[in-house]
C-alpha cells in the first residue's frame, strides 16, 4: 500500500494523544528517551515507538550524544498544519457565528410577537 503524503502524515502523527504529550514534553528542550519516560510515566517501548513515528514525519529530530540519543522538536514541520487549521477554524467559526446570530435574531423576533 502506498504511503500517505508527508503532510498528511504530520496530521496523523499529532492525532495521537500520547504523541502530543511527547511533543509537549519536548517543548521545554532536547531530551533523552529516559527523561521522556520519566516525565510522562509512559513505558519506554511506547515512547520509542511514538518517537519513531514523530521522527519519520520530521516533527522530531534525533542526534547521538555519547551512548544517548537526544530528541528535540522540529516545529517548522508543523507549519502546513498551522495554515490548514487556521483556515478551517476560521471557516467553522464564521459559519457557527452566523448560525448564532440567526438564532439570536429568531429569539428576539419571538419576544416581539
Amino acid at each position, binding site marked *: 500500500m502506498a504511503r500517505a503524503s508527508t503532510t498528511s502524515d504530520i496530521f496523523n502523527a499529532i492525532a495521537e494523544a500520547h504523541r502530543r504529550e511527547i511533543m509537549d514534553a519536548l517543548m521545554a528542550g532536547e531530551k533523552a528517551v529516559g527523561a521522556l519516560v520519566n516525565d510522562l510515566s509512559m513505558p519506554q517501548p511506547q515512547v520509542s515507538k511514538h518517537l519513531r513515528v514523530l521522527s519519520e514525519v520530521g516533527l522530531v529530530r534525533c542526534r547521538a550524544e555519547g551512548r544517548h540519543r537526544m530528541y528535540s522538536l522540529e516545529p517548522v514541520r*508543523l507549519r502546513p*498544519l498551522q495554515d490548514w487549521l487556521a483556515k478551517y*477554524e476560521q471557516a467553522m467559526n464564521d459559519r457557527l457565528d452566523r448560525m448564532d446570530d440567526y438564532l439570536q435574531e429568531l429569539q428576539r423576533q419571538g419576544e416581539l410577537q
Partner: protein
Amino acid sequence: MTPNRHGTAVIEFPSALEIVTTREFDAPIELVFDVLTKPEHVRNWFAPFEDTMTVCSIDLRVGGKYHMVFVTDDGTECSFRGTYLEIERPTRIVYTWLFEGWPDAEAVETVDLHEIDGVTKVKMNLAFRDQAGRDHMTKFDGQEDSWDKMEDYLRSLLDPNGAVSGS
C-alpha cells in the same frame, strides 16, 4: 445581554479520521435543532451570504436526502449532499456527508445536541471512512504564514484544554 460567543468553536482531532467541533448557543435545544435541520432556517446561515445559497433541500427522515449548494465570492460552486442515517429530535442527527469535489471522501457526520440551563451545546463529529478521504479535508496549500505565533500556536494545539501539561 449574554456575552457574545463568536469565535468560540472548539476543534479537536480525537483520531486520524475524525474532526470534532463543539460550540455552545444561547438558545433552547428545540430551536437549535430546527435551525440545523429546516431549509427555511439553514438558508439563513449556512452560506456566507444568503443570496449565494442556490440549493437547500432537506428531507429530514431516516433514508431521506439533503442537498445544499452555495456559490463562493470567487464564483466557485460548493455542493454538499448526503443521506440521513439517524434522527432523534432534538438530540441527535447522523448523516452521510459528501462534498461533490471529492467523490472518494464520503464521511459520516454525527451531530449531538445537549441543553443545560438554556444553553445548547452542539457537538459535530465528522468521521471520514479512510485516510484518503480525510486527506482531502486536510490538504495543505503551502501558503506562507507568519512565524511570530508559532510557539503559542504549538502550545495551544498540543494542549487545548490545559490538561496535558504536568501529567
